[in-house]
């Protein structure tokens, strides 16, 4: 470390941290206040009479089935992560290690479509999903998102970086490509697979524009469109809205804490998901 005075240095770092963390703490504290206290001027920091009434309101309303939304979010995000791992790892393995006609063409097509902004696809995809009978179902949230190119690029790159010796040894012992893929390549790729799983899960969990237009029934909603409903239904009953936001935040913040390395790794290597 170059010469800096530790006290000044850490004051700056901690001051900055407050800017990022304080709003999130405020969300947490507000969820346990009464509606009156949440909007009191001057504001109270800690709930004077901590209450879970916001959560009771949320759970008690048939029009805002938050637990159902939570479950749907878990299903959609997990489903998509699993699907992405399966299809992207197979395609990436073929693109990295197998020789076949049209390989460059396929890879080139995937690259070319990176220049298509996602909003262009929304309207035709709405019609395609409609044709498949997937409107207002979780399938609409699980499958189309798995078409993203990020997983294929990311894993292909990782596979190319693996030493070939182990695969060649397996080949000499008579293993076929599927055995090499599942017993040699995949086990060596656990960190990359974990990174991709976490990134896919987060992206799907947070998706907003797509679910608000392809889901219509409250019981099929995931949390993000659910929050938009809460904001419309409870306008200034902020503890209820913050309770909903908390339910949507806790799982991803926990996931980030446990898998921070994978999230940051995925982002710094890629940024391709935009």
């Amino acid at each position, binding site marked *: 470390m170059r010469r800096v005075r530790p006290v000044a240095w850490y004051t700056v770092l901690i001051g900055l941290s407050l800017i990022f963390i304080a709003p999130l703490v405020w969300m947490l504290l507000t969820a346990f206040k009464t509606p009156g206290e949440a909007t009191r001027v001057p504001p109270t920091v800690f709930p004077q009479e901590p209450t879970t009434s916001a959560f009771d309101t949320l759970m008690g309303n048939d029009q805002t089935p938050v637990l159902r939304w939570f479950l749907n979010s878990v299903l959609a995000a997990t489903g998509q992560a699993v699907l992405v791992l399966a299809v992207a790892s197979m395609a990436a393995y073929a693109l990295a290690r197998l020789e*076949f006609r049209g390989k460059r063409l*396929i890879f080139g097509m995937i690259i070319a479509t990176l220049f*298509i902004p996602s909003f262009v696809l929304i309207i035709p995809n709405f019609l395609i999903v409609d044709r498949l009978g997937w409107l207002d179902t979780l399938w609409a949230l699980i499958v189309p998102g798995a078409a993203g*190119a990020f997983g294929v690029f990311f894993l292909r790159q990782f596979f190319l970086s693996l030493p070939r010796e182990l695969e060649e040894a397996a080949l000499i012992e008579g293993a076929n490509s599927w055995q090499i893929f599942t017993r040699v390549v995949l086990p060596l790729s656990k960190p990359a697979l974990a990174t991709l799983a976490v990134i896919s899960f987060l992206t799907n969990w947070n998706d907003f524009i797509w679910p608000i237009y392809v889901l219509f029934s409250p019981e099929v909603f995931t949390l*993000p469109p659910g929050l938009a409903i809460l904001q419309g239904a409870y306008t200034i009953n902020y503890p209820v809205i913050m309770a909903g936001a908390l339910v949507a935040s806790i799982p991803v913040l926990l996931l980030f*804490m446990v898998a921070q390395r994978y999230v940051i790794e995925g982002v710094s290597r890629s940024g391709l998901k935009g």
Partner: protein
Amino acid sequence: MAADLAVREQAGTKQRAAGRPRRTGALTPYLYVLPYFAVFATFVLAPAVYGLWISLHDWDYLLPGKPFVGLDNYQALFDSSSAVFDFFWESMSATGIFTVLSVPLLLAVPLLIALMLNRSFPGRTFFRAVYFAPYVLGVAVIGVLWRFLLDPNLGLVNAILPGSAPWTTALPWAWISLVGVTVWWTLGFNAVIYLAGLQDIPRELYEAARIDGGGKWAEFRHVTLPGLRPVLLFVVVNTILLSANMFGQSYLITQGAPGTETRTAIMYIAQVGLRDYKMGSAAAMSYLLTVCLLIISAFVFRLFREKDA
């Protein structure tokens, strides 16, 4: 994006040349690619073409007939007497204003943070995680959260600040809110990418610069910035594209307020296509916006290349 990929592609080719191709059945490789390709073809390739087809029709989702109208939907966007002209260009300029205001901040502030985090000190990983944390949350969470914090009458921001401002209901405050929230939310993303770029700059270059004399600024200009170039190109293009994609913040925080001034292009396109179900017109708008973004991206690429010479 493309530059980044090109570099990786080259690295890949070199490695491949070193090894022998695997012997497999002629069809086997296609079986590996097939599941992904089926999803990719259905939800990327097909819609990219299908969207163009839709844009050439008077495509109303709710009506049985979808007559072919040629380029009418595109012409309407340039015809000041058409029903969509005013709203469309208002939304395009909203997206433009947001992009112009947010991109410089999203380029500069994360760079400062990355430079701070590039030093070695105890707790570095912890602070990196803290600054990145808001980005992990979705736009829905940060949207409803900041709607609350910025509430002109009841929000924390006005309670803390000496004056009080209509953060979500009047200009220019609404823009300040949208840009500020976006910077707060996404800054960690660019910072992490910068940081990865900074860590790739060889230490010897800094040592050489120090021996040459010249201050911190010279070091930054002659070592750090040139070293960051490839990363910088990606960050600039990506940040512009993401800002031009802005949707959720306006949807939840200002709801387009004061009137429709902060309704972005994506918001308007979604409104026309997926609420009013005028899909032909909305598809045309989305392709026009795409062309604008391609031109801007090409311009940025050229700018970076000219600096090379």
